[in-house]
């Protein structure tokens, strides 16, 4: 069966989707100090985040090579501390409540800029 750009058929019955596929809802209270805002979410999702970021780190390493990877990693602390308020503080909170190093939380959060190429 050909798929992709060579064959397609307009889907007409996908909506409404199953309720079981709905993503769960959490609150972020902007009145809390930035360090505290992500605590409830990280208590639930922290372990899954660690698994993802560990994998991404390995995959990036394999794609860009040792030299570029080390350059990126060695500069992450500087990038983190230079981010505008409240992003650095929020990432410190995420690192604290997930148990993940701040450098990897930073990598995850600047992924768009670092890997648009």
């Amino acid at each position, binding site marked *: *069966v050909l*798929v*992709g*750009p060579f064959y*397609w*058929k*307009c*889907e*007409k*019955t*996908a*909506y*409404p*989707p199953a309720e079981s*596929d*709905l*993503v*769960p*809802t*959490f*609150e*972020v209270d*902007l*009145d809390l100090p930035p360090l505290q805002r*992500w605590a409830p*979410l*990280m208590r*639930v*999702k*922290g372990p*899954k*985040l660690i698994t*993802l*970021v560990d*994998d*991404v780190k390995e*995959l990036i390493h394999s*794609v860009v090579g040792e030299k570029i990877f080390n350059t990126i990693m060695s*500069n992450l602390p*500087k*990038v983190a501390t*230079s*981010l*505008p308020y409240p*992003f650095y503080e*929020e*990432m410190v909170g*995420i690192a604290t409540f*997930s148990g*993940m190093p701040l450098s990897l*939380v930073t990598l*995850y*959060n*600047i992924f*768009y*800029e*670092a*890997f*648009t*190429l």
Partner: protein
Amino acid sequence: CTSIIAQDPEGHLYHGRNLDTGLFLGWDAKNHTWKVAEKLRPLTVQLDWKKNGTTLFRSINFAGYVGVLTAVKKDKFTFSLDKRFALNGGYMGLLEWILFNDYKQSWVAFLTREVMEEAANYDEAQAKLSKTRLLAPVYFILGGIKPYQGCVITRDRDNFNMLSLDSKSIDSKLWFLVQTNYDHWKTPPFFDDRRTPATKCLNQAGQKNASLGLIYNVLSTKPVLNKETVYTSLMEATSGQLQGWIRSCPDPCWPW
């Protein structure tokens, strides 16, 4: 990614998007999935951003990511972001940030967070997303609450191009916009043409059927839906409605 804004004959605006990611980061040959996309699915959450006890805006986020990629601000605007690939992409801005301490530029997803928190209306959001100097190129897709308030802002780091629902003459105003990671003035490559099926499916349905349901169906049409798709979300600014669903693409399905 694919973002769609559609307007029905009464002028109501609907906004939907597929978030696609994970390309080239680990293909699982056994399960036919991208490893990163698989790991992002359980991290996908809807966030209610509260200020003074009330919801300021809603977004679909990946847990641990403090920026905003998909969001709605009730009675104001809807927003989505699509990646824009470029040879002189984000790493140039990143190098300037690290080597030359050039902090007079914005990180893409942090700017969008600021816009969601601070912009009071569609026009304000549009201006800020168009004119702020960025670290990386990107597509911003913005929908409003009034007829024809819909646009795709194609950004490089300093300049922008805007395609709006009312870009053309009164006789040929558009009723939908489709953004699929390629500049609208160029033909998408044959190996990643999601624009053609999305456009044809919308035209086939017609403006009279414009709705969140139609957008969901179009976003479920392969290859608009593909192995990279992590979630689909639907938004409407007037009601403040935002919903997100985890997606998978059963075989046969295009890898991107």
